[in-house]
């Protein structure tokens, strides 16, 4: 029986969704394995450990230290390595998030291990497991295997469904003491811009605006639509470059890569670099006044029309629907 370590992620005292997806991924890699969930941070982590068990982990280990309050590579690598040394897992799964992208290569480097980053699908299991990941910004995919060392992967949020929560499950939550010291990078301040509202990379529904939105105020109807849908607002680089919104909203080759269930592209022409960030969304809706716009080639449903008519009408209709 193998053992898999999933390294969870905490934001504002809560587990991010990808932490649960990690567990499902580990189970998919090896159904019979023991899945150990690690939580690193400050504050009350034990309840989070229990929650991870309810989402399918067998047990949890937590490392709590004041120097883990903010994520830093130096701090978290000390905590993670202590857990890895204690558990000596056959495989490690983390989220391909800002944190996971920063930490996983360092752990892999320390372990002299391979690492398959940004996995969107797991094929097969056990010794035959293969990992599928997008390359060339989603224009192609590759299937990879680990040939040496631990089965170490990071998974893209929103692609591997978490297991059903089972409140009756319980398990052991163990505290691991680590003296986290000598941080060479210090976080002085965190300026929140993006994380008000729904997190773009984990959003199930995204309403994205482009240059067609024409101004910062032009984004207001998009925010209203996103609001009634419980979704997040994104943007094209065209909109960000024009100063209509913050770059933190940009989706595409040089922005965020998202895979929501529903992506509504509003006043976006559909440049190849934009498609790179959203073409793997499950359902794509395009609203554009130009019937020739390239976005219609990737859209499942299209409305040719003026966004300033269509978007508010959509919002009203959905409001009516939801009562």
């Amino acid at each position, binding site marked *: 029986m193998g053992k898999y370590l999933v390294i969870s992620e905490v934001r504002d005292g809560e587990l991010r969704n990808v932490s649960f997806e990690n567990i499902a991924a580990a189970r998919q890699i090896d159904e019979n394995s023991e899945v150990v969930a690690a939580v690193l941070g400050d504050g009350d982590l034990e309840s989070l450990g229990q929650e991870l068990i309810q989402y399918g982990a067998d047990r949890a280990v937590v490392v709590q230290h004041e120097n883990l309050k903010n994520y830093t*590579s*130096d701090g978290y690598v000390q905590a993670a390595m202590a857990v890895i040394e204690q558990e000596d897992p056959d495989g490690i799964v983390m989220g391909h998030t*800002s944190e996971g*992208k*920063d930490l*996983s*290569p*360092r752990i*892999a*480097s320390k372990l002299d291990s*391979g*690492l*398959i*980053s940004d996995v969107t699908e797991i094929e097969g299991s056990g010794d035959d497991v*293969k990992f599928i990941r997008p*390359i*060339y*910004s989603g*224009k*192609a*995919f*590759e*299937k*990879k*295997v*680990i*040939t*040496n*060392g631990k089965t170490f992967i990071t998974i893209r949020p929103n692609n591997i469904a978490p297991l059903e929560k089972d409140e009756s499950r319980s398990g052991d939550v163990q505290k691991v003491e680590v003296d986290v010291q000598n941080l*060479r990078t*210090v*976080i*002085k*301040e*965190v300026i929140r*811009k*993006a994380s008000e509202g729904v997190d*773009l*990379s984990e959003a199930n529904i995204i309403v994205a605006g482009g240059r067609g939105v024409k101004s910062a105020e032009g984004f207001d109807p998009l925010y209203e639509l996103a609001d009634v849908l419980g979704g997040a607002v994104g943007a094209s680089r065209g909109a960000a470059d024009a100063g209509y919104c913050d*770059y933190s909203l940009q989706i595409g*080759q*040089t922005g965020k890569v998202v895979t929501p269930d*529903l992506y509504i592209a509003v006043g976006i022409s559909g440049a190849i670099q934009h498609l*790179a960030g959203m073409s793997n969304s*499950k*359902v794509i*809706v*395009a609203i554009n006044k130009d*019937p020739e716009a390239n976005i*219609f080639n990737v859209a499942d*449903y*299209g*409305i040719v*029309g003026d966004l300033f*008519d*269509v978007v508010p*009408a*959509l919002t009203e209709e*959905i409001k009516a*629907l939801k009562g």
Partner: protein
Amino acid sequence: MNIYVLMKKTFDTEEKIQINGGKIDTDGAEFIINPYDEYAIEEAIKVRDEHGGEVTVVTIGDEDSESQLRTALAMGADKAVLINTEDDIEEGDQVTTTRILEAYFEDKEVDLILAGNVAIDEASGQVGPRLAAKLDIPYVTTITSLEIDGDTVKIDKDVEGDVEKVETSLPLLVTCQQGLNEPRYPSLPGIMKAKKKPLEELEIDDLDLDEDDVEAATETVEVFLPPEKEAGKVLEGETDEQVKELISLLKTEAKVL
């Protein structure tokens, strides 16, 4: 200051991807400097202009990588290094790349290394942090601002849209995110000057490595294109009819509402 930039060449972002014999077809493809590495080069030049020193751009690649290195020199980098693996290594991954870079940097005095956030082709984002770990220097990924004052470094780091104000010190490795700067275009005099700037070519043998030392830990067993999407439905009628139909399709057909 000894400033190094890690650069990879990638497909032009407009390029369509085709598969030939189980591999991505590179025949006739236009190559560019990885867009994130352009930010790294620009920032390196700015740091040098402010604090003095020298910018060296390093790439692991093949003969054709010389073209991107010359562009970097034309932008204003001082020296270029091509580690040509064409004849020595068939298969590699991020372990391979990092091992080679580690060997290259072994005898170098480094103050600052700039890499890209990711290479837009394979896009693992591993190479920067892996190398920093091997060199045992701190690193900060996805930076959008860099300010150096003596040994102290102040950085804005993009964290999924939030900004972290980070303080650290040299020597340091950073990976560059969009928003850091506007990369300059090479000027004509810059292009002329670039032709005379030093471009050193190395092979892994020069770094005391052989193929076994740089063995990959992962293997790509298949490359494939995403399934062709069927043409979508463009809805007809007046706005309110289109909107009603869309919502009904999203509910019943697509089942996302």
